[in-house]
């Protein structure tokens, strides 16, 4: 115990810290709620994220500017049919002849290490492959080899590093 070992600590602080170290009530269903959330399919999670209520603070000047911008958009943008603007099937391949598993992690599957496994290719020995429907736009992703090695796609452009400094690749899917 740091508190017991350090004679320099004032009695007030020592007593206070001991009080704060008392256990707190933990929500009894915390683990169940966490596991329910992590098992939720990526699409359902994305839908929940979209409809999640948010509070947006806008100053009066900001509100005026936003109204002007929306007005300009309504004026400039003509609704037009966009045939074929839906998801495209994108093939990802990675050469790892000694790996026992390769999975694809990216924004599109919420970086879930278990959501998108690659399968060994029948045509090319040592190559792993998977096909994923991706909407037009920019996607950041990486491969996870043997569940622990985070590897950017050598066949794709390098993207910005992630929240923890890990290297990612970036792929832009064009709309047709």
């Amino acid at each position, binding site marked *: 115990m740091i508190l017991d070992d350090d004679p320099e600590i004032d009695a007030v602080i020592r007593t206070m810290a001991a009080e704060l170290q008392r256990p707190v009530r933990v929500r009894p269903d*915390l683990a169940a709620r966490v596991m329910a*959330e992590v098992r939720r399919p990526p699409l359902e999670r994305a839908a929940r994220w979209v409809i999640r209520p948010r509070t947006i603070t806008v100053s009066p000047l900001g509100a005026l500017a936003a109204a002007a911008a929306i007005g300009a958009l309504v004026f400039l943008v003509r609704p037009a049919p966009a045939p074929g603007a839906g998801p495209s099937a994108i093939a990802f391949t990675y050469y790892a002849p000694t790996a026992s598993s390769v999975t694809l992690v990216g924004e599109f599957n919420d970086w879930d290490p278990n959501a998108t496994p690659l399968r060994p290719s029948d045509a090319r020995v040592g190559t792993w492959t998977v096909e994923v429907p991706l909407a037009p736009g920019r996607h950041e992703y990486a491969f996870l080899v043997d569940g622990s090695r985070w590897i950017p796609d050598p066949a794709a452009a390098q993207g910005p590093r992630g929240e923890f400094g890990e290297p990612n690749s970036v792929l832009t899917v064009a709309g047709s």
Partner: protein
Amino acid sequence: MTPPPRIAEWIAAAGLDAATDPSALPAPTPLPPTVPPVTDGTLVAQVLSGTTEAYTQLVERHQRQLSRYALRMLGNAQEAEDAVQEAFVRGYRSLAKCEDPERYRAWLFQILVNRCRTRAKAAKARAQRFVATEPETEPRVPHPEAASAWREEIDRALAELPSDQREAFLLKYVEELSYEEISGITGASLSALKMRVKRACERLKDLLKDAYDSR
């Protein structure tokens, strides 16, 4: 020859006499084989290899400490519960980015500290905007741990600290992490952290001295 007193007591307790041939004594019961503890690193590896259920053990193993930090940091049970749940879920989704799975707890603390910072900012903004809309007559549910005046004074004093000092103080003296660990979690330098803890202690002593003397 008379056996020494303690051995004589043992022989008597075992129902033997001093003349018993030691070789006639029953063989000692072998100790059960020791089972190596399942470490955080093992559980992380199991989750990453597809055994999602192993994450439940990581949650159950660390939920108490994380809940305590979040409650002390945010001062609101509901906010703390939400922050801890978010941290565990984000931890799961980023698990492959945990560079040292044996130090999963410190890595998760890093996520929780960030969640608490975000929630504290949002709560502050809400308080500034909506303070007048809360009915003053709304009954306050007493916090189950705020049973004593001393305890209430502690909560009040903690809330008076700047958030970076409160964060450093809680991680150091309540969660008992090393300065090196706290530096990895918060991103602050060792010297900055020591200064924050020192200032926090000075301020807390000032705020709590009277309440401490009159306990």
